């Protein structure tokens, strides 16, 4: 019983900590601003795609990747609440995401899609 009680209090503390992390979620206004920003970034991406003078430059691909990464991060932080949620959820998502990203880049190196010039 004592052990049970001890376990329960640990759980309560942990829960309190976790709940504190989960308390502050965005309101409707934030969600609508996020939607507007996502729409504007998408419009910017498509506009860039139709700019021949820009698509011919070296900045084209990095710019699109950066804009995509910003959209990705905004959805994950605000719509998926990862900015406000417990650290365990962040670890469960960002850990595999980083490994998956390294795998993609590694494979592109292996198949000579990305080259390092010395």
């Amino acid at each position, binding site marked *: *019983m004592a052990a049970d009680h001890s376990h*329960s209090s640990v*759980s309560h503390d942990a829960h309190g900590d976790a709940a504190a992390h989960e308390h502050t979620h965005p309101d409707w206004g934030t969600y609508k601003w996020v939607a507007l920003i*996502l729409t504007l970034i998408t419009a910017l991406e498509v506009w860039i*795609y139709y700019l021949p003078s820009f698509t011919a430059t070296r900045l084209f691909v990095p710019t699109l*990747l950066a804009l995509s990464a910003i959209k990705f991060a905004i959805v994950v932080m605000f719509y*998926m609440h990862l900015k406000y949620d417990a650290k365990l*959820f962040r670890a469960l998502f960002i850990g595999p995401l980083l490994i998956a990203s390294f795998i993609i880049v590694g494979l592109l190196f292996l198949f000579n899609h990305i080259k390092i010039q010395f």
Partner: protein
Amino acid sequence: MATAAIESHDPHAGAHPATSTGLNNTKIAIWAFIGSECFFFASLISTYLIYKGRSLVGPFPHEAWTDPSTHQVFKAILNIPITSVSTFVLLMSSLAMVLAHSAVVRGDRKSSKIWLASTALLGATFLGFQAYEFTSFVHEGLTIHTNLFGSSFFILTGFHGAHVTAGVIWLLTLLFIDIKRGLTPDEAINVDVCALYWHFVDVVWIAIFTLVYLIK
């Protein structure tokens, strides 16, 4: 004692039994699942990128191609305006999803039904755009057997579409429950878990839209 339910103060989590982490196990499970899905889509995206530009015959995604034997001209196959609209539709479905979740948390049954139905409808619209795109590609001569681009493109976007389909079914199930007996704030975790899956499908599309459609 240990199994006694803890009254949660978090309106998004609802009441859940005591856990060693203090977090809802269902939510931990969906995040672990989403983490595993990162690897799944990474394998499909890397396959697409590795095969990119290595097709021996057309049609090609961004440039026209003339068949040397028949002299038939195939135009660039990707339709960016249509896909941009479908991308916008999917982004708006994410907004509808967070509003549905917010409504369930507040116990606003009318709004929750409207937003759940809107999310499902926008998801179905995205699938309609994808069906149109796939059909037009086949009519223009690109199938899963045509070339490396066709194989990797249909596999990647097809699996994403399958995920959207599963999400729409999940949303319709929640909508059915909401209509039948109403989703209470204590059940908001069920909508939260569905929302996390839906937003993940959205972020995967954000990556696909850039890597497949926009980067030439």
